[in-house]
């Protein structure tokens, strides 16, 4: 039966797909720009963080709404007693996303100032490495979230 929680979980998953696409593409742009030293599309480097921010707000907001029923009916009833490693992987996902949220408070405003004039900025390495880390974190969170939801949805 499709409950309200399950419907929200589906929307949460769709929003996470948008988030994963934008953040991983953005990470690849940073990899090409900063690590490989090749020319990249600055317009996309400015656009992706805005898409990431919008998808992030939606995904995170829905996740926070779904958290109490998940905590009681999924983690408390299934994962903790029978699959503690699933709880561990979920906890890592949640804390990494919280840390990534903090980094985004720096990344999103800074992304608007990317370009040729920003080549000498002292925080350019931090910006690009954080963007790459964000892509890795979101990829991990998407895989773990989808896997755990497949094992035991809310």
């Amino acid at each position, binding site marked *: 039966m499709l409950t309200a929680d399950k419907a929200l979980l589906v929307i949460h998953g769709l929003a996470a797909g948008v988030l994963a696409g934008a953040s991983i593409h953005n990470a690849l742009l940073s990899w090409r720009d900063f690590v490989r030293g090749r020319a990249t599309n600055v317009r996309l480097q400015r656009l992706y963080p805005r898409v990431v921010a919008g998808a992030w707000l939606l995904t995170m907001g829905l996740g*926070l709404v779904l*958290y*109490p*029923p998940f*905590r*009681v009916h999924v*983690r*408390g009833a299934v994962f*903790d*007693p*029978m699959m*503690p*490693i699933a*709880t*561990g992987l979920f*906890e*890592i996902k*949640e*804390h*990494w996303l*919280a*840390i990534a*949220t*903090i*980094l985004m*408070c*720096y990344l999103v*405003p*800074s*992304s*608007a*100032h*990317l370009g040729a004039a*920003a080549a000498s*900025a*002292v*925080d*350019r*390495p*931090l*910006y690009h*490495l*954080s963007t790459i*880390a964000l892509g890795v*974190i979101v990829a991990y969170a998407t895989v773990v979230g989808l896997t755990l939801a497949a094992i035991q949805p809310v």
Partner: protein
Amino acid sequence: MSSPTLHPHGPALLAGVITSLVAYVAGWLGMVPVLAYMPATGAFTFSPDPDLIAMSYYGLLLLGGVSFGVGYLATRAVTATRALTPGAARALSRVAAVIAVGALLAVAVVELGERSHDGDGDAAPRSENTVPASLPGAG
């Protein structure tokens, strides 16, 4: 004078990241009080009933958000009258990077370490997002 960072308020943003990360990790490790949500009662409290499920994730996010604001505003107040040197801004960005990497690694090591001990039959989880009993400061 042009800013040494990408964003004109880059030093303040970096200071916000640093204070927020430190506060979040301190709250996660149980070093500072964190507001907990009790799904059974729908109440928020700093002293959750140990017999009930308590969720401190909302409180941790709140703690991180408020700490970001404090770090950001305090640094804005300082840099409003005196611009930060490139060296100081570079140091801020390096400190932020080190703390972020440390926080990510600490979360992975502690969480996986805790779960690996849960397979011996004592699968009762520690209270969510609180310090593992094996760490100093556990309460």
